[in-house]
């Protein structure tokens, strides 16, 4: 069945104008259809879509706590098996709920092989509590707990946790990075993930207008630049087979990282020192020098 014309994520929610999360969720639900159960980690998505007694969810939905969406999904999976029912289970978590506090539950869920699609919508900080740095915040980003000042002109001093690689290293059947600005690629990956039995992990970049400090009308443009600059590469890894990792998109001509950094307030301070921009450009160039060979369109 094709449910692309139907809506399972209703409007009227309280997510910010320009937030990428509802775009991601709305389309994943359209692709999954009504035979779906969603479990959601605590975070913006949960808070802004389920203010009792209203809800944006037209599929069964459950929220339990911050760190356990993957464990709740595991329980639902066990119950479905006990009842002999076939239903898609989709877990949504932000980066805090996935790469930090929810990491253990996610690792357990993947190791046990539950039939769940876990979707990380990664806005690169704890946005719901007010832009605190997470394990997914990139090097050089200002947040309210990686502040920029005379003693620290950089902001976050550590790189982003490579969550997709970590989950792929569990030999999960399917791991992919995706970007809603590359819509066909995103759709293909969601469909593919849903067609595979076992644990699937989608790492989707999701811009946050308030945390990234960008114009709410520029969401898709900025997300596109994340991939066009090479900073957020799109790839998939099946069954932990890193040798056969597949980069699904490679820009014909990479844009300089400045183009992605410039429109975002969280990186403004980096432009005071050209070395910082150079460092980020170098990181990107090195990544592509190492992994570029895996581009297999």
């Amino acid at each position: 069945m094709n449910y692309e014309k139907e809506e399972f994520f209703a409007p009227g929610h309280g997510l910010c104008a320009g937030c990428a999360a509802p775009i991601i969720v709305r389309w994943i639900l359209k692709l999954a259809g009504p035979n779906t159960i969603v479990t959601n980690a605590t975070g913006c998505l949960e808070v802004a879509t389920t203010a009792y007694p209203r809800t944006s969810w037209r599929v069964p939905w459950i929220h339990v706590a911050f760190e356990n969406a993957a464990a709740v999904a595991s329980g639902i999976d066990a119950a479905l098996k006990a009842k002999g029912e076939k239903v898609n289970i989709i877990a949504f978590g932000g980066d805090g709920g996935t790469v930090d506090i929810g990491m253990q539950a996610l690792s357990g869920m993947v190791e046990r092989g539950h039939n769940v699609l876990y979707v990380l919508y990664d806005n690169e900080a704890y946005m719901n509590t007010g832009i605190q740095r997470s394990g997914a915040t990139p090097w050089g980003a200002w947040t309210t707990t990686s502040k920029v000042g005379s003693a620290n002109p950089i902001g976050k001093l550590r790189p982003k946790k490579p969550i997709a690689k970590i989950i792929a290293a569990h030999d999960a059947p399917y791991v992919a990075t995706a970007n809603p600005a590359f819509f066909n690629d995103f759709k293909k990956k969601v469909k593919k993930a849903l067609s595979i039995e076992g644990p699937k992990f989608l790492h989707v970049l999701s811009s946050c207008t308030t945390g990234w400090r960008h114009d709410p009308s520029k969401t898709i443009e900025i997300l596109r630049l994340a991939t066009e600059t090479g900073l957020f590469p799109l790839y998939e890894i099946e069954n932990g087979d890193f040798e056969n990792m597949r980069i699904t998109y490679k820009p014909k001509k990479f844009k300089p990282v400045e183009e992605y950094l410039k429109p975002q307030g969280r990186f403004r301070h980096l432009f005071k020192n050209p070395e910082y921009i150079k460092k980020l450009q170098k990181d990107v160039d090195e990544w592509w020098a190492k992994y570029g060979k895996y581009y297999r369109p």
Partner: protein
Amino acid sequence: MKVMIRGNESIAYAFKLARVQVVPAYPITPSTLVPEKISELIANGEMKAEFVPVESEHSAMSAAIGASAKGVRVGTATASQGLALMHEVLFIASGMRLPIVMGIGNRALSAPINIWCDHQDMMSQRDTGWMQFYAESNQEGLDLGIMAFKIAEDERVLLPAMVGIDAFVLTHTVEPVELPEQKDVDDFLGEFVPHYVTLDPQNPATLGSFGFPEHFMEFKYGQWIAMERAKKVIDEVFEEFEERFGRKYMKVYPEFVEDAEIILVTMGSMTSTTREFVRRLREQGKKVGLVKLTVFRPFPKEELREILKNAKVVAVVERNISFGFGGAVYAELSSTFSRMKEKPKIVDFIVGLGGRDITFNTLNSVVEIAEKAMHEEVDEVNWIDVNKEAVLKAEGLL
């Protein structure tokens, strides 16, 4: 059928007989044998259930919530640190009104790390909105385990329940247990029907939504009402169980109390030792009675008031401590009597923490102080069988 089983097996057999469909569990001493036994029963084809070998107790309870919300019967087991790790999610299970049943191998909490019996683990969860039952024997562990499902799933209740079995004294001790027939348990429990909204794609619902101040208190009041209503449901279920299986349960189980001047209040396995001790005192003509508290949540205030009101001294013998006040049972019992004009003197005795044996000597010390309390003032909170001198020296007070 009479079987010789350990307390942990009582919990596992209760789950089997209740036809539990999902068991998410994580190993922890002394309750590890519960998931082991479940795994064995499933592997042998004796039990049909999904066992989820989760990576932590937090995830065990989270998975239990997910499965229960999908509309299946769920059981799990843990103890001590594991129960403490679950703390956050326990509130959510009860707040979402999911009738999950959990066996607890009552064990001390660190530090110092200790694997033996006391009731600190469950007592520390008393405000999480779970019903709490304490078993005296392996038979009680099994029976309460089965009954807990019927009580929890009643549509007047819909609250999760814990059944405590004392670490090692019960969990690892083999006792003869009357194992009911499957058919009889099926008749008693009936087929599992979730009397709550489940995760059903045919009828999509949002569970665990965001409650603003204008709604939050009504949810909490609902839990309060459910816990109050559980009191009657527990009585009904206990009565029906007695009719069907011949074993009597009461929230508050009194023995030798009619003319008793001193009544000892106990919980769990220490009750057996205390019963024999009290029986001997009775032979000596001492007017001492015993009350076993089987249900701690909901707290059976009404029964306790009725049974204890004529005693001169109530000695609360308990295996937990709330630092800065006293034992939890003492605190609750004292406030239970706060509105009564005529009331017994209630004295607290902290015993058997971290598996220290509760012997006749322990109970002798308790009764000595209780007898003294009939005529003079005694300490509110009395630590029994403790090397106080060593501690006072270490604290620089001696």
